[in-house]
């Protein structure tokens, strides 16, 4: 999936109605809390990405999520 699709899925997982942008602070996104982090973990695992929960908790921006998603996201 491309970056836009990935961000749409992230927003969906966080139950956020807002559009996400590159470099956006995760703390500014509605739904980015302990349950939201589990939801993102599930999203990444569903895409075949295995990461440590602490690594995900340490993420600060949407760019960090892109980095963690790795090959799950196609960089055009």
């Amino acid at each position, binding site marked *: 999936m491309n970056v836009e699709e990935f961000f749409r899925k992230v927003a969906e*997982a966080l*139950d956020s109605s807002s559009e996400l942008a590159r470099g956006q602070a995760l703390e500014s996104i509605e739904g980015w809390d*302990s*349950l*939201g982090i*589990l*939801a993102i*973990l*599930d*999203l990444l695992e569903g895409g075949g990405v295995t*990461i*440590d*929960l*602490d690594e*995900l908790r340490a993420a600060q921006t949407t760019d960090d999520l892109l980095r963690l998603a790795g090959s799950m996201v196609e960089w055009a």
Partner: protein
Amino acid sequence: MTQHVLVVGASSGVGRAVAERLARSARVTAIARRADRLAALAEQDVAVVNCDVTDFAALEAAIDDAVARAGQFSAVVYCAGAQLIKPLRSLKAADFPSVMDVNLLAPLFLARCFASQKVSQGNAVFCAVSSVAGQRPEPGIVAYSVAKAGLDALIKGMAKELGPRRAVGVAPGWLDTEMTQGYKHIYNEDFKTALAKRSPAGVATVESVVDVIEFLLSEKARHVTGEIITVDGGAIL
């Protein structure tokens, strides 16, 4: 009558430890999904059956074979379990069977078999491994908690309907097992440290859970039924 115990979910963790412990004093039939794990149990005089507990026809056939071979059960211990850690909004309908079938529907089917005098002795004991999550659901494990709460209700219902047979359960907190180790992104060193801090009697172990199961199956617990004993070192207090 002969002591013949059926242990369901004996691949690893509590189930395996229960089978090994009880085999010292009773005939034990152990059912597990992972055939490779059963060989070691077979070496300890445990009759082993490879069976997926969610395949009810296969489970019933395994039970019938075990009874034909070694007589009606004096006890049945249900230890199979499957965890599911997801927020409610991430749950998909396809996730439901994975948590409900093993944690609730398979023991319900087993209870239905246990209820017959053709399968269990008149004073037999049914013991299931529940979880503290059944009493205290936590965020992220609601589906699992629902299944375990249903299992608790099954135990209480069996105690009422099947007396003088007894039905009991144990409710461990987090134990160091293959199942919890599989959630290494959550069950990490920080988690273990926090768990130890909030467990005034120390973090429960597989062996301490087996100790309680052994007591519940024994004559010493002859008047204990419909009870689910928490074994978590006090972590949920």
